[in-house]
């Protein structure tokens, strides 16, 4: 009898896994279950081109609408998996249906963190994860209106930029000293700060929201430091947390998402996880990491499908992502939490650089603004884990591609 592979989460990782299973010749049943109304689509435009009304939803679709039917993929939209039973090997859906699986890929992504705040139930307060969210925010956008964005991580920063570019007057409130501090650190965060200020976006740092005020609809945001910011609408972007509820009660280990090995296997036979939700073992960084970005979800969707088919190789892609803000393109590659030196090639002031986060002379990660080519050429340096002299990294005349010496390459 043919096997059934069930995928929970019809996003980038889940959708990619489904098409990879077919591409690689799997002829069993593929069931793709998604809580949203739509077939798999890409989220990056939701805070950028789509939010600014410069691109259509169709352009964001992973595959044309008839792809799933034509490829024998049973796509169930607008249904949520509520419980997975790892002994009976079934998935319970909120439609009342039960689906039996031989193998299951869990790719339910992340959800926006909710921070309880007085007044958060008022109209005109939004967060952003889905196209439905983006549509609601789009309806609020028109030149001269006032918005407050809460939180200046990537999504907050991008929303602030897109609103500003659409003529909205924007104030951002963030608890840190600079934007994106957690990922990029203070020096690079400062560059992003200046970019936003130069575009006329107001930024308030080291402050948090104490309450939203208004009658029926939000009219102002009151901060802990005592600011009262009048506004027409608010976008809250205070980070995310992994969606793991359907796995509660199974033997699957949950720790900062779903814990998997370098083949995306959980500790429970037949259950895999990939994408934003997967805390996966990474051989290059010799630890588990969870990455919430596009390339990661795409590549892991492919790799997890291959692993489910019994093939595949240990996953060792170096994480990479981009963020577009105003006319600038930021890219980051690698993974770092702490570092002892930031080595800059180019100029922070001129906003054109690639900077390397180093620890013990090894490059853990690199970030670039408007230097996509240099960033890409830095990836092998990260992967090689070689010690490379700072002076050579800084010197624009040294070709980054020539810095890795084959003899030292570990992987």
């Amino acid at each position, binding site marked *: 009898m043919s096997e059934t592979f069930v995928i929970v989460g019809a996003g980038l990782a889940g959708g990619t896994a489904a098409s990879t299973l077919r591409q690689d010749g799997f002829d069993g049943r593929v069931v793709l279950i998604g809580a949203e109304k739509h077939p798999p689509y890409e989220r990056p435009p939701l805070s950028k*081109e789509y939010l600014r009304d410069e691109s259509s939803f169709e352009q964001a679709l992973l595959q044309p609408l008839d792809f799933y039917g034509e490829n024998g993929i049973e796509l169930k939209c607008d249904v949520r998996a509520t419980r997975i039973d790892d002994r009976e090997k079934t998935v319970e859906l909120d439609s009342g249906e039960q689906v039996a699986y031989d193998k299951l890929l869990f790719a339910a992504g992340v959800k926006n963190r909710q921070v309880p705040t007085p007044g958060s139930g008022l109209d005109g307060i939004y967060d952003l994860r889905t196209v439905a969210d983006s549509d609601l925010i789009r309806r609020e956008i028109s030149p001269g209106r006032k918005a407050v964005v809460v939180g200046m991580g990537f999504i907050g920063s991008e929303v602030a930029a897109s609103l500003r570019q659409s003529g909205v007057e924007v104030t951002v409130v963030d608890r840190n000293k600079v934007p994106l501090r957690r990922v990029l650190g203070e020096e690079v965060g400062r560059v992003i700060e200046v970019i936003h200020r130069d575009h006329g976006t107001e930024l308030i740092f080291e402050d948090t929201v104490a309450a939203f005020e208004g009658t029926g609809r939000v009219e102002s945001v009151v901060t802990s430091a005592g600011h009262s910011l009048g506004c027409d609408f608010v976008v809250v972007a205070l980070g995310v947390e992994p969606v793991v509820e359907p796995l509660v009660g199974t033997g699957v280990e949950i720790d900062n998402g779903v814990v998997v090995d370098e083949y995306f296997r959980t500790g429970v036979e037949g259950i895999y996880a990939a994408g934003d939700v997967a805390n996966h073992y990474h051989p290059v960084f010799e630890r588990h990491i969870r990455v919430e970005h596009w390339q990661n979800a795409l590549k892991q969707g492919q790799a997890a499908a291959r692993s489910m088919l019994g093939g595949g190789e240990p996953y060792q892609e170096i994480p990479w992502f*981009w963020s577009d803000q105003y006319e600038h393109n930021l890219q980051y590659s690698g993974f770092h939490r702490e570092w002892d030196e930031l080595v800059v090639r180019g100029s922070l002031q001129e906003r054109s650089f690639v900077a390397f986060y180093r620890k013990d002379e090894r490059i853990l990660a690199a970030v670039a603004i408007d230097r*996509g080519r240099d960033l890409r050429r830095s990836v092998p340096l990260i992967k090689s884990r070689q010690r490379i002299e700072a002076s050579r990294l800084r010197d624009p005349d040294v070709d980054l591609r020539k810095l890795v010496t084959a003899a030292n390459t570990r992987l």
Partner: protein
Amino acid sequence: MTEFVAVAGVDELEAGEMRAFDVRGVKIAVANVGGAFHAFDDTCTHAGCSLAGGDLEETTVICPCHGSEFDVRSGEVLQGPAREPVETYETRVEDGSLKIEG
């Protein structure tokens, strides 16, 4: 009849390199892959970045902005986020100069 426009001397573009030229108002990138010249639209179909500003790895051009990959010979998308192929153009070498269809 297809007309060809001279854009550079053949030795101005080394193997493994790319450059963009303005051919009658259209930005066209040319890649030298081991002595063979391949011409294609310089403007990435994803969000419009200049492909010549990216990297060339054998016959693949990689966009500097979001990593879309195209085959320089056919214009075909090898990896997203781009979905639409880029237009390709014929090239010709005559009297030591590189010419592009235009």
